[in-house]
């Protein structure tokens, strides 16, 4: 691929969504709904087409010439010290992200045309959505740390816009703010990581030009000693950034709240694209993570832990979108676990399939919510399958893929991902993580089919489901396409087990130059294809157990929640219901103390100390003036007495000095 071609692709891919966003922001209105819809969807579709063309061109190129970095302009150059340029990279990793973002994004945009049909703020909505896609593409194309950070933050801000889209709902406003501030924490971590990287790329400090260009950094990655504290700190900070974006413990509390946004937003941002950026980041920075084993382990543990926790919470939620949100958190936890284990391609693969089936689930949920007139509580649903036939089938496919039922896309990616752990991790810990991982399969099956069963099967809990009607075609088509992808993507992308020597051009092979060419450290190699039959069988079995359990619990017997809950220890249900008390904990440990400090500053420090010292001096001077004034008695005898006294005093002093 030539530089010129890549520059064109980058500009077009970024340009279409941005221009679409600007047009809708400037000229769009609810009255010009047709224009808004066309601009909003076509801009993303065009970007997808460009990405697809780029993929084809890339596949025709030789494997060693598939990664190209272009410099668009200099951002800030300090002669002799620093050089930051806007650089974009088109390589195997970024093209996959481009395709996912624009492809799934396009479908969701089309869906939104139907979903937002009656909303007054449709122009604003599409402007934000296009801007989000632009930001996400910006993030994945960036080849310079500063631009990565800019994209990182643009993504956060567009998600902030979209979560708070219905700004007259206080809960939406609060959720948006929470999401944004969490993201800022991640941004700051990334910024400081960038500082650590540039000041350490070549040593010693002061004898080189700081460059934030990622190819340069990776090329000079030998500057970082394997396992040194520097690289450990860098990777810790990068991981914090990734955790914030991917809603991992302990920065996960914003994601469920973020469901306050319109459902297509949840599908696009909080399932398919933005929240996976953390996975992308760690994969992108794998040369550094490969040198920081402690942080790799930490990332894997956090991923699996978050996944488990989210699975448990998902079991008790009653808001349809929150259930899916926790499911997202759980699945991303698995991806994070994978990249933490060094299985970057596996993580990326799950990222892609997850984008399909999770977008599908959210859009399906959107159809349900649409049909129920903005009702999200699953306790009032039930039996919707009779009314929403296509949605129900699609949702079922999504749930099957999510649960890891064989031959659906999720099965390929997930079971394989888990398989790496037991094979490649260090000893007992890896085994433990793997065991937790397969337990998560049970949880996944449970919550996925709990949702499906309660919403679509059984008898309606209230009269409202009876009045529900299927979504219009424009909302069904994307759902069906996604359902198809969820069902068959696994076959297209990757056959997980090598049957003899027969292998297609698979996902890992395609990505392998990215994950191997730069570094050649001890942990640099991708674990390879052979995840092993055993791991896969165990994982699949666990998934089936989970699904079966769910169907047994919720489909056939239709028990009330209390009966089920009574069989489980109370503290677990409480933890699950209260989302492990993290909101309360942060409120008590961070928000309240900070507020208290701020209040203390305002009530005490500012008036008493900061202002106090000034006023104190003023008052002191004033008092001194007051003390002196009474000497001015107005009586001549006093005045003359003072005069004589002082005259004599001066005489005595001066003469006394001389005489002595």
């Amino acid at each position: 691929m030539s530089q010129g071609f890549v520059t064109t692709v980058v500009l077009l891919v970024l340009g279409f969504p941005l221009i679409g966003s600007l047009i809708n922001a400037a000229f769009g209105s609810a009255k010009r709904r047709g224009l808004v819809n066309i601009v909003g969807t076509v801009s993303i579709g065009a970007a997808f087409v460009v990405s697809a063309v780029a993929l084809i061109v890339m596949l025709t190129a030789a494997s060693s010439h598939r990664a190209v970095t272009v410099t668009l302009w200099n951002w800030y150059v300090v002669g002799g010290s620093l050089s930051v340029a806007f650089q974009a990279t088109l390589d195997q990793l970024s093209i996959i992200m481009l395709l996912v973002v624009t492809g799934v994004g396009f479908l969701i945009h089309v869906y939104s045309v139907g979903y937002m049909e009656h909303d007054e703020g449709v122009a604003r909505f599409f402007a934000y959505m296009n801007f989000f896609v632009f930001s996400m593409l910006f993030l994945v194309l960036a080849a310079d740390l500063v631009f990565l950070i800019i994209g990182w933050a643009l993504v956060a801000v567009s998600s902030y816009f979209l979560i708070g889209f219905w700004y007259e709902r206080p809960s939406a406003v609060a959720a948006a703010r929470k999401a944004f501030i969490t993201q800022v924490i991640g941004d700051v971590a990334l910024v400081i990581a960038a500082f650590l990287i540039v000041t350490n790329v070549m040593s010693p400090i002061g004898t080189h030009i700081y460059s934030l260009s990622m190819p340069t950094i990776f090329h000079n990655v030998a500057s970082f000693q394997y396992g040194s504290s520097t690289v450990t700190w860098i990777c810790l900070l990068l991981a914090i950034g990734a955790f914030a974006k991917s809603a991992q413990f302990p920065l996960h509390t914003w994601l469920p709240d973020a469901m306050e946004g319109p459902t297509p937003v949840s599908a696009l941002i909080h399932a398919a694209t933005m929240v996976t950026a953390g996975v992308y980041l760690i994969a992108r920075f794998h040369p550094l993570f490969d040198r920081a084993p402690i942080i790799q382990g930490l990332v894997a543990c956090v991923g699996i832990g978050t996944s488990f926790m989210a699975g448990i919470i998902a079991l008790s939620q009653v808001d349809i979108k929150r259930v899916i949100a926790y499911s997202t958190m759980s699945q991303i936890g698995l991806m994070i676990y994978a990249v933490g284990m060094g299985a970057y391609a596996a993580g990326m693969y799950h990222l892609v399939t997850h984008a399909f089936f999770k977008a599908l689930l959210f859009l399906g949920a959107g159809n349900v919510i649409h049909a129920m007139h903005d009702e999200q509580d699953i306790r009032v649903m039930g039996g919707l399958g009779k009314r929403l036939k296509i949605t129900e089938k699609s949702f079922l496919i999504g749930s099957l893929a999510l649960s890891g039922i064989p031959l659906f896309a999720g099965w390929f990616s997930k079971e394989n991902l888990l398989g790496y752990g037991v094979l490649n991790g260090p000893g007992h810990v890896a085994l433990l993580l793997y065991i937790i991982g397969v337990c998560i399969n049970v949880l996944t099956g449970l919550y996925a089919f709990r949702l499906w069963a309660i919403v679509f099967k059984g008898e309606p809990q209230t009269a409202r489901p009876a009045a529900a009607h299927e979504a219009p075609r424009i909302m069904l088509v994307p759902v069906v396409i996604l359902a198809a992808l969820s069902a068959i993507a696994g076959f297209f992308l990757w056959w997980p087990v090598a049957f003899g020597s027969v292998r297609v051009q698979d996902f890992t092979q395609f990505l392998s130059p990215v994950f191997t060419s730069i570094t050649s450290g001890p942990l640099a190699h991708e674990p390879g294809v052979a995840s092993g039959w055993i791991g896969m069988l165990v994982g699949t079995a666990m998934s089936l157990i989970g699904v079966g359990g769910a169907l047994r619990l919720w489909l056939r017997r239709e028990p009330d929640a209390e009966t089920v809950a009574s069989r489980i220890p109370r503290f677990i249900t409480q933890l699950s219901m209260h989302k492990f008390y993290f909101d309360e904990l942060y409120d008590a440990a961070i928000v309240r103390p900070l507020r208290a400090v701020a209040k203390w500053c305002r009530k005490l420090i500012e008036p008493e100390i900061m202002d106090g010292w000034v006023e104190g001096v003023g008052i002191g001077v004033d008092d001194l003036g007051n003390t002196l004034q009474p000497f001015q008695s107005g009586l001549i005898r006093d005045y003359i007495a003072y005069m004589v006294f002082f005259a004599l005093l001066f005489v005595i002093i001066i003469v006394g000095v001389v005489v002595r």
Partner: protein
Amino acid sequence: MTFAHMLAATLPALQFPSGADVVHLLPELIVGGGFIVTMVLDTLIPPSRKSWLAAWSLLVLLASGAVTVIDWVTVGGQQISVYAESFSYDRFGLFINALILIAAIFVVALSPSYLERQKIHHGEFYSLILAASAGMMFLGSSESLMMVFLSIEVLSLALYLLSGFRRGNTKSQEAGFKYFLMGGFASAILLMGMALVYGETGHTQLPAIAQVVAADLQSVDPLLLTGIVLVFVGLGFKVSAAPFHMWTPDVYEGAPLAVTAFMSVATKVAAFAAILRIFSVALTPLYTHWEVAVSAISILSMLIGNLVALRQTNIKRMLAYSGIAQAGYMLIGVAVSGSAAIAGVLVYLAAYTLSTFGVLAGVMLVAKGDDDSSSYRSLRGLGHAHPYVAAMMALSLLSLAGFPPLLGFWGKFFVFTSAIQNGQIALAIWGVLTSAISIFYYIRVILILYSPQESEQGGTVSWLAPARVGAVVVGLGVAATVVLGVFVPVVYHLALSARDALLVRIAAP
């Protein structure tokens, strides 16, 4: 050692003044002669035409001013002894003359309308102003202790009368009486000091005293030092330096505004001229002995003046205390006693003259009724009613506060510079800290000028339309503080010439 004895010692040298003597003292003599003619004219002019006297006095002052300017050019850098070393004809004296004349011109230009309003429009006013001016100008040129004393007596007598000029007003009467008593006492101290100096040195002429003092530095007689201190106390009283300042607020407050303005400015200029001639020139050899006293008085003046001024609610009293503080700053210049310091004090005096007058003139121009209108409260809202008058006052106040680029800043700047150059950093820091205090009471007045009138006080204060002549004259003065502030080299150059002339006699032998 009596006064008669000293006089007798001086007299043999005195003859009938020569033609040259008259020429050299022409500015002083014009004003002095004008005083006598005015007294005569006063009896001839009908009461309704008293403002003719103002015009006449103005003419006299301007004539004297013209001669001063001509003299400045002709005398060059010389220092010429006049009338048997009683006076010195030099640029220093002429500089002082100019400042005093400016003050006198201001007050005469402003007085007619003001005196009419106060119903004290008497012809004596102008003759007394001329008399006081003459005394001050003589003081500025005096080169003999005798002449210093006589000049002070002349100016003081006129001012005693002027202070009590509002005859019907008890405060004014009290002011006149108080000033008279205190002034008499101070004169006695001054004379006592002079007598001691004369007794120890055998001379009344400053150059001769300087020679005697310089010749015998090893053994300094305590009596001589006592005399020096007493002389300083006497002069310190005139410049209202703390702790000899007690009379100032009472007298300033009681005296008519015009007199307060004149007295606060011109007296200080003249008395500082004497201090500089005596201490910074003649007694420089004994510097180490009197430095402590002058520094102490300077520090006290800055402290007391500024602190008590903070508490004032009457602009006349505020300016009295401010004047005390300003004397303190100028005394820094005396205390460090460098040659740069003298020029600094001269610039300071010029700034002080223009600025203090600017403030009081503003009140004089628009004040209605009694002098009570000089309370802060009655100044509220002047900025809206008479923006130009208020702006003049504000600029003058800022100049007093020492804001660049106004002339007042340069006074402080040169004085502080000389202090630092002579290693008196503590004095400079003290000066800076107290100036910071001073900003508040000056700005407070400005804020009052520009704040809205209080309506709950029962009706708004009304002001008179300012008299045109006075307004123009004062406007020129205020403009000068701004323009000369920017083009300060002009003033500084003049001050340096005056300083150089003062030092000729010292440098010569």
